[in-house]
């Protein structure tokens, strides 16, 4: 489209990229006795995001494996590599999520999970974000130990840009009151919470996806169903009312489910308001306040449909670009830039909405609170 600012000159804030945290790298940051367990698996030959006792099971491990030249196992091992690769795709600021710890919620030992979360948060800030101002930390909130997660948020309030809420294998969903300390701490710290799932097969809703034959089906649904379930959970239990200043964002689910959830909840509210009398507005009011990362952006034949989708959930001020670099289904900025967003919406989606969510300036610095 002629006359537009080139992507290289546009502020691009990437709201979902992934660092590769190996057990050996986290071990020096991990409290005993769990550091011993990390060292014990440090040299295990790594299958993609699948290490026993660390990130068990996962994406594509159930279906038959045939040869392919698709490089579906890209990893970023250092902040220098990350900065260099993000520069290639014109990203200026990026929020860092983990690789293996996408599955932290499936770990059955609460003390181990909490120790892993503490180790990851310290490692991420020490080795990545404190040394590179363009890299922003999403510290992980361990769902198995909400009190410890709240302490972590307080501890890192000055260094983090967001709090990452893991969703894969999570039980119960993020609307449960046991998680209130996490929301209280995040709200007090002025940090947004961002939900992120990954494909696993587990007895826990909505990851009980063993009925599907293919990874095509499992991966089509895992992220999106999980985000939908958690958004509905957080509205229906009143998280959005109990923590009115808390900013909530969701990642890696695309955007086309948003109009459905808004409309469906509003429809049910007509009949079942008495179950959620604490909602003072129609349910879609709360859903529409959430920030939505675009990746994996839908690829309809009519690209204008993406603009329509954003309009359907009034997402002009809440939709944010994400690449999911370096994962197999990442979105290059050029993909989203094929959508006829218009100049203002383009600026907002590629960068300005994320600055608002994180409360940062164009250099990644947080405003004083």
């Amino acid at each position, binding site marked *: 489209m002629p006359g537009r600012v080139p992507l290289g000159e546009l502020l691009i804030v990437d709201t979902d990229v992934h660092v590769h945290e190996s057990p050996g790298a986290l071990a020096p940051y991990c409290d005993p006795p769990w550091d011993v367990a990390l060292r014990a698996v440090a040299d295990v030959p790594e299958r993609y995001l699948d290490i026993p006792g660390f990130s068990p099971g996962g994406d594509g491990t159930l279906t038959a494996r*045939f040869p392919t*030249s*698709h490089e579906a196992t890209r990893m970023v091992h250092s902040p220098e590599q990350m900065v260099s690769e993000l520069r290639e795709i014109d990203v200026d600021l990026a929020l860092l999520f983990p690789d293996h710890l996408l599955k932290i919620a499936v770990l059955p030992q609460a003390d181990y999970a909490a120790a892993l979360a503490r180790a990851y948060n310290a490692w991420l800030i020490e080795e990545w974000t404190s040394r590179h101002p363009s890299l922003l930390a999403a510290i992980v909130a361990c769902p198995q130990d909400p009190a410890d997660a709240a302490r972590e948020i307080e501890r890192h309030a000055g260094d983090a840009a967001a709090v990452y809420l893991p969703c894969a294998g999570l039980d119960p969903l993020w609307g449960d009151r046991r998680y209130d300390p996490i929301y209280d701490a995040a709200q007090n710290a002025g940090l947004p919470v961002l939900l992120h799932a990954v494909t696993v097969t587990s007895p826990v809703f909505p990851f009980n996806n063993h009925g599907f034959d293919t990874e095509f089906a499992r991966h089509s649904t895992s992220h999106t169903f999980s985000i939908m379930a958690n958004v509905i959970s957080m509205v229906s239990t009143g998280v959005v009312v109990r923590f009115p200043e808390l900013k909530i964002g969701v990642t890696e689910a695309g955007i086309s489910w948003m109009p459905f959830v808004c409309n469906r909840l509003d429809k049910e509210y007509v009949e079942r308001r008495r179950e959620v009398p604490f909602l003072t507005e129609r349910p879609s009011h709360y859903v529409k306040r959430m920030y939505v990362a675009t990746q994996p952006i839908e690829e309809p034949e009519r690209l204008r449909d993406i603009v329509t989708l954003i309009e359907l959930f009034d997402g002009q001020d809440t939709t944010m670009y994400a690449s999911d670099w370096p994962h197999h289904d990442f979105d*290059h900025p050029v*993909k989203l830039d*094929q959508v006829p967003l218009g100049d203002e919406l383009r600026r907002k989606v590629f960068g300005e909405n994320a600055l608002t969510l994180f409360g940062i300036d164009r250099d990644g610095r947080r405003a004083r609170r």
Partner: protein
Amino acid sequence: MTVVGRVADFPEGTHRVVEVDGRSVGVFNIGGRFYGLLNRCAHQGGPLCEARSTTGTLVSDGWRLEWAHEGEIIACPWHGLEYHVPTGQCLAFSHIRVRTYEVTVVGDDVVVTPASSRRPPAASDR
């Protein structure tokens, strides 16, 4: 016509990315025959021919899956969109074909002829 190397530079079952008239092109030796394919995926512009090696793929005969086209399929390293190298045809979307180049062996040289055919439509053009 551009000489892109010697025959010995392209052992059977391998491919290399070369430059032809300012364009990046993958040159493939599949079973002793040479093929050229534009090094740009129609999906998000990924470096299609920088994929490590060609493979076969799964096709269906009725409801039975078969492993077919051994050595003739390249999946883009970025997102895995598959193409049939000899024809440039995308397997997932019938309307997508990546530009192919005629590759011949002249003496000991591998020679690429720049495509003069109309560029097939790409998803990103629509």
